[in-house]
């Protein structure tokens, strides 16, 4: 190991001079000595990347800098660890370079339940609510907690609801690492959350879909169909038409869409189940599913319906109904994104890269 490398190491034993001699006082190799702290220069490039990556939503920590512990405003006795919120595109890319992940697009008009679904996917782990899935970590825990708040008793809200994603946020990502109980290793996901107005815009201008990173790099697109709207006689046809318009736009404009899987996700099933129009609403959803399959069966890699109730407002349907099945669909297949800045990789090339990385 070079002296340059060793110079960055320190030892908790005050008598050891490894920093200058490159030799462990107790005769351990530098890789084995349990008293060494800090990292070698040969490692530090990766470590610096990781220090940037592991605090994706805030200023990266640079251990080489005298200002490493400084906060904005000049206080120099505090270390910031970042992670206050969800990831923007830049910070999501940083995370991907360190940890390739599958990008999951969750698409639908405003109030369809996108953020609710995202919060439920995470929150159910807190109760051990999944039979086949285990939580493996998240770099956006604070962000998840924030969006879960409005569905908890602590919020003292009148009804469970989702906080609306502002269109000014463009797109944000929530990181979730999940392991199938039968699998050897966890899988990382970036759940994309964009305001419904921006997906309405795609329906109106299909070419916009090419600029949406969650379509360009996504493995699964989940198009949400608002169960509340299907129960409403005045809204039901518009709800189906909206979903169809978005799918039309995706099919027309997104490159390599034949490797994109499409999930049609009925939301707010608690309201559907309790409604006098329950049967009609389910018929509408099933009809929409068949229509999409007939029109785009050869376009998407698969088209699958799901029924969910992420945050029920009425009892009778358990919280998180159907969400485990949905997450399991995300686990199927193994394509991952390694960098938003890189062109999307085809399925076969992606598997080849992952194999090389794992070797």
């Amino acid at each position: 190991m070079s002296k340059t490398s060793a110079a960055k190491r320190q030892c908790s034993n005050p008598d050891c001079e490894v920093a200058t001699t490159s030799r462990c006082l107790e005769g351990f190799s530098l890789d084995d000595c349990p008293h060494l702290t800090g990292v070698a220069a040969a490692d530090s490039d990766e470590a610096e990347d990781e220090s940037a990556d592991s605090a994706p939503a805030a200023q990266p920590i640079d251990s080489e800098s005298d200002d490493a512990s400084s906060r904005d405003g000049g206080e120099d006795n505090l270390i910031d660890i970042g992670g206050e919120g969800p990831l923007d595109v830049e910070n999501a890319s940083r995370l991907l370079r360190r940890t390739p992940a599958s990008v999951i697009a969750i698409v639908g008009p405003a109030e369809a339940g996108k953020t609710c679904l995202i919060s439920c996917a995470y929150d159910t782990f807190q109760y051990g609510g999944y039979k086949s899935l285990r939580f493996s970590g998240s770099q956006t825990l604070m962000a998840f907690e924030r969006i879960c708040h409005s569905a908890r008793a602590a919020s003292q809200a009148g009804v469970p609801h989702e906080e609306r994603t502002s269109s000014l946020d463009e797109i944000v990502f929530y990181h979730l690492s999940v392991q199938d109980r039968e699998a050897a290793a966890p899988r990382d996901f970036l759940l994309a959350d964009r305001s419904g107005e921006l997906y309405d815009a795609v329906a109106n201008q299909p070419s916009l879909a090419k600029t949406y990173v969650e379509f360009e790099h996504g493995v699964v697109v989940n198009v949400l169909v608002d169960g509340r709207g299907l129960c409403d006689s005045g809204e039901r046809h518009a709800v189906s038409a909206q979903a169809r318009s978005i799918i039309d736009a995706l099919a027309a404009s997104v490159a390599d869409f034949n490797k994109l899987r499409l999930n049609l996700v009925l939301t707010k099933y608690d309201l559907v189940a309790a409604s006098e129009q329950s049967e009609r609403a389910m018929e509408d959803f099933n009809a929409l599913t068949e229509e999409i399959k007939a029109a785009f069966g050869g376009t998407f890699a698969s088209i699958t319906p799901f029924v969910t109730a992420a945050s029920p407002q009425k009892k009778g349907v358990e919280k998180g109904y159907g969400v485990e099945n949905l997450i399991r669909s995300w686990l199927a297949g193994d394509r991952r994104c390694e960098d938003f800045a890189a062109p999307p990789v085809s399925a076969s090339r992606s598997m080849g890269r992952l194999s090389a990385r794992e070797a």
Partner: protein
Amino acid sequence: MARSASIIVCGLPESGKTTYLAALWHILGAPEVDNVLTLSSREYDDYAYIHSIHQRWLRGHKQIHTQALTQKVVGLDLANESGNDIQLLVPDHSGETYQALWAQRQCETYIGEALKNRAGIMVFINVDTIEQPRPLINDLADADDMAGDEGHAAEKAADDRAAADQAVASSAAAPDSARQGQPFNPAEAPDQVKLVDILQSLRQEAFRSNHRRVAIILSAWDLLAPDEETPEAVLKRELPLLHDYLETGEHEWETKVYGVSAQGGEYADPEKDDGIGEDTQRLLEMRPSERIMIVDDGVESRDLTLPIAWLSP
């Protein structure tokens, strides 16, 4: 000269860290307790803090809340069964330190240095105060149950359907009024979320150490007193998110779970002048070391040095 190693005692407020240290000091000096680690010398020359918390423990007094701005270090000169000496330094950081790591996403530099120079971590969790976040729908369902009448089930079912349709209309028509409530407060996040986040943060460059061992200490174990359940089973049941995180993932933490009762019961709070309660009186009448219990791999003992022995390099 003994090797020096630092064990971080970590946990949220009121998780039992200081009580453990006080009880640990006691059993190190108790001849009736067989310990894996024993006191080998008094080379560390500052026992004021450990003596003060030990005295409170002996008297059956609750520990004074560790203040955030003070840095107390417990120094222990120990030897293991092979006769190897080690000087353990145990910074007794306040629970607010770790609360701030979660809520404000920052910590003091000296805390960061201590975390980085660690030989191991003990994470304390008070099993008596664990609360899962309660879904709002549960409160609404309970309200419905209280208002319902079992003798009119069919009428109620019809009313439910109509109410659901009304909810469909009203949630769209008056979203703002339905959404009023308290703003999100990070401090109110579930403990297991905070602990996962703290452990994830310890893998950042600012805190990274070569040492990967984490001892999970479920404190107030006597209040659970599960006859059959192991500490691991309790962790899985009560803190599934944390349990999953420790079991899975590529974080490389090596963990062990202990159940610890360092008090044996309820202690008096002399600040409140309530006198000595019945439970405290019971504890004061027994040999102090008999208040202590630790469960490790299904075996009960009083040896509070077991987690330290496992963590020590």
